């Protein structure tokens, strides 16, 4: 049920300006920036697109990140925080709390 409204929203949503810049479709990227931004920050979408272009060019010169880097230096601490927070979503009682129906059912059995 939930994917349907999402699919409709996605269909009418503007294309990602970053993706458009990567494809070299700069005019369309400007339009997308205009649609996505707040009215107050829309003074100069051309500037925003120029900044994206520059960032993408800079990214190309940077080394591709590798899985080994995740476990080096301070990045190891950062990776472990993310892993721990993800994992603990299972451990904070969520699994029993989401069984509320089970307790309601039990309760119903007593009531009968």
């Amino acid at each position, binding site marked *: 049920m939930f994917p349907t409204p999402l699919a409709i929203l996605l269909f009418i949503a503007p294309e990602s300006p970053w993706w458009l810049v990567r494809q070299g479709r700069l005019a369309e990227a400007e339009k997308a920036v205009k649609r996505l931004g707040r009215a107050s920050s829309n003074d100069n979408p051309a500037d925003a697109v120029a900044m994206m272009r520059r960032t993408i060019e800079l990214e190309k010169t940077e080394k591709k990140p590798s899985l080994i880097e995740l476990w080096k230096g301070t990045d190891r601490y950062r990776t472990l925080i993310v892993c721990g927070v993800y994992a603990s979503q299972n451990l904070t*009682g969520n699994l029993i709390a989401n069984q509320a129906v089970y307790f309601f059912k039990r309760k119903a059995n007593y009531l009968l």
Partner: protein
Amino acid sequence: MADNTAFALGLITSALQWIMVMLSWVLTTYLGRRTIYVYGQLINCGFLVVLGIAASCGASKAASNAQASLGLIVSVLFCLGPAPASWVIIGETSSVRLRPLTTGIGRGAYYIVNIPCIFLASYMLNTDKWDLGGKSGYVWAGTAFICTAMSYIWIPEMKHRSFREIDILFQRRVPARKWKQTVVDINDDE
């Protein structure tokens, strides 16, 4: 009839969770992620212990009413505090360059813990296995307390920090509890 009531109450839980997630938008505006995450977990930990106690009082209508409501309270509070905050922390902690990889590995860690936990949860609740019922609240309170302690020690406060500041603070190895007081000068560059 009873099944219908249980199903309706299940739907009500979902609706309340939905509202709580929207209230969390307000909460994150005023409180830091660390505050919400650590204290939210601690509060849930308390409610899980109470759920365990309610289940230990013997089988009565009052006791099972209490268990059902406490289950609802725990799940609703989880949606108000720790759950949305955990997504914020996941999104902010890794360095920008490594973020897609870190998030992928984190999701892997989630499933490594998720699968055994689902087994454990089913065994604890099923009447023909361990049949712990609400007493499994004690078990989850234990794991929740460990998570609370670990997050108190290790999760820093990243609210109002830029990517640059977060990078610098991690580089300096500032202890998580001291992030809030630490000032990063505009001219600092490490």
